[in-house]
C-alpha cells in the first residue's frame, strides 16, 4: 500500500442510527481501519453529523495531531460540507478530508451483512490510501456582477423583474414578442376569484416600463451566453420593428393610414379570430406602446412599391424601413429564465375535429371570445355569428395521454370551470364538462368547483372518444355530437352541442431546447427545464447563477408562477448580496510546458472553459468556468492536464487500496 510518512489519518465510521449499523458491522470496520498504514485513530459513533460527532473530530485532531480526516457515512451530497467544515475548524485544510459513502453504496443496497461489511472495508481502505496524497487547496472567490438578466416577459418574468428592481438592482428584461404580458394578457378572467386578468396585469406591465431599474428589451432574443456564475456575458439580438422605439408615442395614426384599408392578416393576439394590418400593435395595452411592421405582409417589404402612407402619417418621423437586427452585449451576474410554455396544438388530437369543424375551438380562442376587448367584444358567437345554445368543454386535450403528453397540465380543470362559468354567463347555454378526474388543488379551487356544480353546469366523467357531425336523429342534425362514456352512470352517451371547447394542455415551448443549449442547462424528460432538486431547489438549475421560474419548469398556474418568480428573485438577490461566489477547487489546469497545442480539449469541454492562447500556442483553462468533469484530463494526449483532487497519484492509490488488501 502506498505510504506517505507525514500523513496522520483519523478515521470515523458512522452508525447512522440503524441505517448503516444494521447491515455493516461498524465496530469490525473501525478495528480493521485502525490497523491500516497511516491511520493514527479509528472510531465508530452513532451520528457523526451531530454536534458531538463533529466536536469529536475537533478534539481528536488536537490530541492525536491528525492531519487527514476520513469519515465513512452517507452520501457526500448530504454531508461532505458538514465534515469539510469540521475539518477546517480543527485547523486542517478542508481538502485533506475524504468521505466514504457506505450507506447508499453498502448498507442500503445489500442483504448480506458479512459481505456488506467486506465491501465497506474495501471502500474505507481505498479512501484512506487516497487521502494521504491529498493536497492543500483553497476555494476561489469571484465577485458577483449585481445586474440581472430576465428572459421572458410573462407574468413570471414581470414579477421577478419588479422584485429584483425594487431591491435596487439593475434588471434587463428580454422578451421575444413585441409586448410583454405573455399568455396572461390574453385571458379574460382568472380563476377562482374571477379577477379581470387585464386589470391586475396591466398595472404591473406599465410598472415594468416605468421602473428606472428595469431595461425592457422587447422583440429581442438572447443569442449567446458566455461566462460563469456572477460574470455572464450575454448577446441579445433586437429584431427590427421598423419603428424607432423612442420616437413612437402609440398614437396609431400610421395604422389608420396603412394602404390596406381593411385589416386582412391573421391577428396572433386574438388567436386568428380577427384580422390586423401589416403595421399594428398586438393589443391596446401592449407594453411598450410601440407599433411594429410585419415585414412578411407589408407591401413595402414584399414589392417595394408602397407609397408608405403609414410613414407619411407619422408626425414624429418614427419610421425606419432600413432597420436591421442589432446585437447588444450585456454583462450580468445572474440569469432568470421565465420563458413559459406553449399550448398543446389541438390538431394533434384529430379525433376532436379541430380545424375540420369550424365550431370546435381551443380554450385560448374562447378566452379571446369571452374577453370584452376580444374580436367580438365579449359577445360569444360562433363563426357563423349565431349564439351557441349548448357547449361541450373537453378536458385533458393533449394531457394524460401516452400518445401526446403524459403529464397533467394542472391548469385545465380550473380554467375549464372558469370558461364554463363565463360561457354560461355570456350565453346561458347548456354547458357540459367532460373530465377524467376533476383536479382542483388550490386555495379556493374546490369551492369554485362546488359553485359551478350548483350553477347547473353538467359534469360528465369520461374521456371523450370523438367529436363528429354524424347525426343519427333529428335532434342531432346540424350539431357536433360528442361521444363519451358517462362512467359514473355506466352508459355511453351521445351529446349534440353547437360548440366544442378543447381544454388544451401545457407543453414546453417549441424553442425550449434552443434556450436550454444557449444557457447550458438541462431539461427533464418532458422537455421542461430541469430544476436542481424537485423539492429543495425548485428554482435553481445545475448551472450556478441561472434560475428558472414559471411554466418553463413545468405546468403552473398564475399564483404558482408568481410565487416561483419571487423565489427565483430571492435566490438571485442572495447571490448578488453575498458579493462573491466560492468555486470548488476541483478544476483542471494545463502544464504549459507539456501542452502541444493540439486543441483536442477545446472542442470536448462541455462548459466552453478552454481557450487557445495563440501567442504561446497552448490551451488555457478558465478556472472559474471549469466544472471539474475531467473530460479534458482523460483526452489530453500529452498528459499535460491535471485536475485538482483527481491527480494521477490520488486515483491510482485509491484503486490500489480498493483492489489490494
Amino acid at each position, binding site marked *: 500500500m502506498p505510504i506517505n510518512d507525514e500523513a496522520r489519518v483519523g478515521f470515523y465510521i458512522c452508525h447512522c442510527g440503524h441505517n448503516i449499523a444494521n447491515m455493516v458491522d461498524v465496530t469490525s470496520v473501525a478495528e480493521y481501519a485502525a490497523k491500516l498504514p497511516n491511520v493514527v485513530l479509528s472510531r465508530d459513533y452513532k451520528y457523526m453529523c451531530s454536534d458531538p460527532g463533529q466536536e469529536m473530530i475537533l478534539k481528536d485532531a488536537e490530541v492525536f495531531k491528525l492531519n487527514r480526516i476520513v469519515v465513512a457515512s452517507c452520501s457526500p451530497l448530504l454531508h461532505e460540507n458538514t465534515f469539510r467544515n469540521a475539518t477546517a475548524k480543527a485547523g486542517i485544510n478542508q481538502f485533506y478530508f475524504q468521505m466514504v459513502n457506505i450507506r447508499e453504496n453498502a448498507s442500503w443496497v445489500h442483504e448480506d451483512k458479512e459481505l456488506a461489511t467486506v465491501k465497506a472495508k474495501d471502500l474505507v481502505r481505498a479512501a484512506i490510501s487516497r487521502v494521504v496524497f491529498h493536497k492543500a487547496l483553497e476555494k476561489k472567490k469571484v465577485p458577483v456582477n449585481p445586474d440581472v438578466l430576465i428572459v421572458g416577459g410573462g407574468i413570471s418574468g414581470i414579477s421577478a423583474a419588479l422584485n429584483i428592481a425594487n431591491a435596487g438592482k439593475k434588471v434587463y428584461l428580454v422578451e421575444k414578442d413585441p409586448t410583454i404580458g405573455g399568455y396572461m394578457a390574453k385571458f379574460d378572467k382568472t380563476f377562482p376569484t374571477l379577477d379581470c386578468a387585464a386589470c391586475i396585469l396591466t398595472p404591473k406591465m406599465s410598472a415594468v416600463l416605468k421602473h428606472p431599474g428595469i431595461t425592457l428589451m422587447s422583440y429581442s432574443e438572447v443569442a449567446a451566453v458566455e461566462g460563469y456564475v456572477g460574470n455572464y456575458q450575454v448577446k441579445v439580438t433586437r429584431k427590427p420593428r421598423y419603428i424607432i422605439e423612442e420616437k413612437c408615442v402609440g398614437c396609431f395614426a400610421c395604422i389608420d393610414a396603412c394602404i390596406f384599408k381593411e385589416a386582412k392578416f391573421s391577428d396572433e393576439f386574438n388567436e386568428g379570430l380577427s384580422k390586423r394590418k401589416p403595421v399594428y400593435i398586438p393589443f391596446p395595452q401592449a407594453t411598450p406602446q410601440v407599433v411594429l411592421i410585419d415585414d412578411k405582409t407589408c407591401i413595402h417589404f414584399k414589392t417595394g412599391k408602397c407609397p408608405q402612407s403609414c410613414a407619411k402619417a407619422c408626425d414624429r418621423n418614427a419610421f425606419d424601413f432600413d432597420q436591421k437586427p442589432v446585437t447588444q452585449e450585456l454583462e450580468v451576474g445572474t440569469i432568470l429564465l421565465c420563458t413559459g410554455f406553449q399550448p398543446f396544438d389541438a390538431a394533434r388530437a384529430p379525433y376532436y375535429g379541430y380545424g375540420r369543424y369550424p365550431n370546435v375551438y381551443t380554450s385560448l380562442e374562447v378566452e379571446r371570445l369571452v374577453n370584452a376587448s376580444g374580436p367580438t367584444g365579449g359577445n360569444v358567437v360562433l363563426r357563423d355569428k349565431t349564439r351557441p345554445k349548448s357547449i361541450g368543454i373537453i378536458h385533458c386535450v393533449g394531457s394524460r395521454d401516452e400518445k401526446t403528453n403524459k403529464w397533467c397540465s394542472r391548469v385545465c380543470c380550473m380554467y375549464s370551470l372558469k370558461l364554463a362559468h363565463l360561457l354560461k354567463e355570456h350565453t346561458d347555454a347548456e354547458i357540459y364538462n367532460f373530465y377524467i378526474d376533476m383536479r382542483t388543488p388550490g386555495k379556493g379551487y374546490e369551492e369554485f368547483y362546488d359553485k359551478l356544480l350548483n350553477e347547473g353546469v353538467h359534469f360528465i366523467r369520461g374521456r371523450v372518444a370523438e367529436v363528429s357531425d354524424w347525426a*343519427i*336523429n333529428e335532434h342531432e342534425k346540424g350539431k357536433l355530437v360528442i361521444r363519451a362514456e*358517462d362512467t*359514473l*352512470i*355506466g352508459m355511453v*352517451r*351521445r351529446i349534440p352541442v353547437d360548440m366544442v371547447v378543447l381544454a388544451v394542455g401545457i407543453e414546453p415551448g417549441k424553442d425550449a431546447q434552443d434556450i436550454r443549449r444557449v444557457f447550458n442547462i438541462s431539461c427533464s424528460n418532458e422537455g421542461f427545464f430541469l430544476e436542481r432538486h424537485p423539492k429543495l431547489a425548485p428554482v435553481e438549475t445545475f448551472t450556478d447563477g441561472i434560475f428558472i421560474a414559471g411554466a418553463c419548469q413545468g405546468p403552473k398556474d398564475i399564483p404558482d408562477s408568481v410565487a416561483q418568480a419571487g423565489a427565483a428573485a430571492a435566490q438571485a438577490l442572495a447571490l448578488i448580496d453575498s458579493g462573491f461566489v466560492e468555486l470548488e477547487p476541483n478544476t483542471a489546469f494545463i502544464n504549459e510546458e507539456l501542452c502541444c497545442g493540439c486543441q483536442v480539449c477545446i472542442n470536448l469541454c462541455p462548459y466552453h472553459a478552454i481557450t487557445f492562447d495563440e501567442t504561446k500556442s497552448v490551451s488555457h483553462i478558465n478556472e472559474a468556468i471549469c466544472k471539474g468533469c475531467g473530460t479534458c484530463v482523460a483526452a489530453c494526449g500529452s498528459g499535460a492536464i491535471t485536475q485538482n483532487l483527481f491527480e494521477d497519484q490520488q486515483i491510482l492509490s485509491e484503486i490500489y487500496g480498493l483492489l489490494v488488501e
Partner: protein
Amino acid sequence: MNASSSDILTQGLTVKLEADLDKNFGETIAREAHGEKLFGCIQCGNCSAACPLSVWMDYTPRKVIAMVRAGFKQEVLSNRTVWLCASCYQCTVECPKGIKITDVMYALKREAIENKVYPKNFPVPILARTFFNEVKRTGRINEIFLLTIYYLRYNIFKMLGYASLGMKLFMKRRLSLFEKGMSDKKEFKAMLNQ
C-alpha cells in the same frame, strides 16, 4: 319514450341519446326534496358505502343521484333502489355535501307512483300503496286486513309461508280480526287531502 329510441342504430344498445333525457327531471326532484344541494354532488360514493341495503340495489344511491342530475328519468323511476331504501338516513348523515339523499328517495317514490313506472310485482311499492289506502280508508292499520290485501295484490301463495307465524301472533293477541276505526274520519280525510 321518444321516437328516436326506436332508431335501429340505438335499439337495445347502451348508448344514451340526449333526446331521450328529461332535462328538467333533476330540478323537479331537487324542488320536491328540498334538495337544492343535489347538484353539488361530487360523486364520492360515501352514501353507497354507508347504505346497509346498497348491496341489493341495482343502482347505488351515488348512481341514482348522478342519473337524476343528468335527467335519466326512465331508468331512475323504474329501478328498485328507491323502493329498497329503508329510510335509515345513514347516507344523509354522512354526505360530505349535505345532500338530503333519503328525501331524494322519497321524492323519487312519489314521482314513480305518479308516473306509474315503478317496477311491476315488486313488493315494496305494493305494500306502500296498500298501507296508504288502508290508512285512508279507516284511519288506522289492521295487520290482518293490510297483509291479506297486500298478498292478494302481490302473491297470495307467499302468504301461506307466514301462516304459522300468523297463528302464533294471533294466539298472543298481536293480531286482531276487528277493525278499529278512528273517531273523526272527516277531519282526517280533510287533512290527507290538503
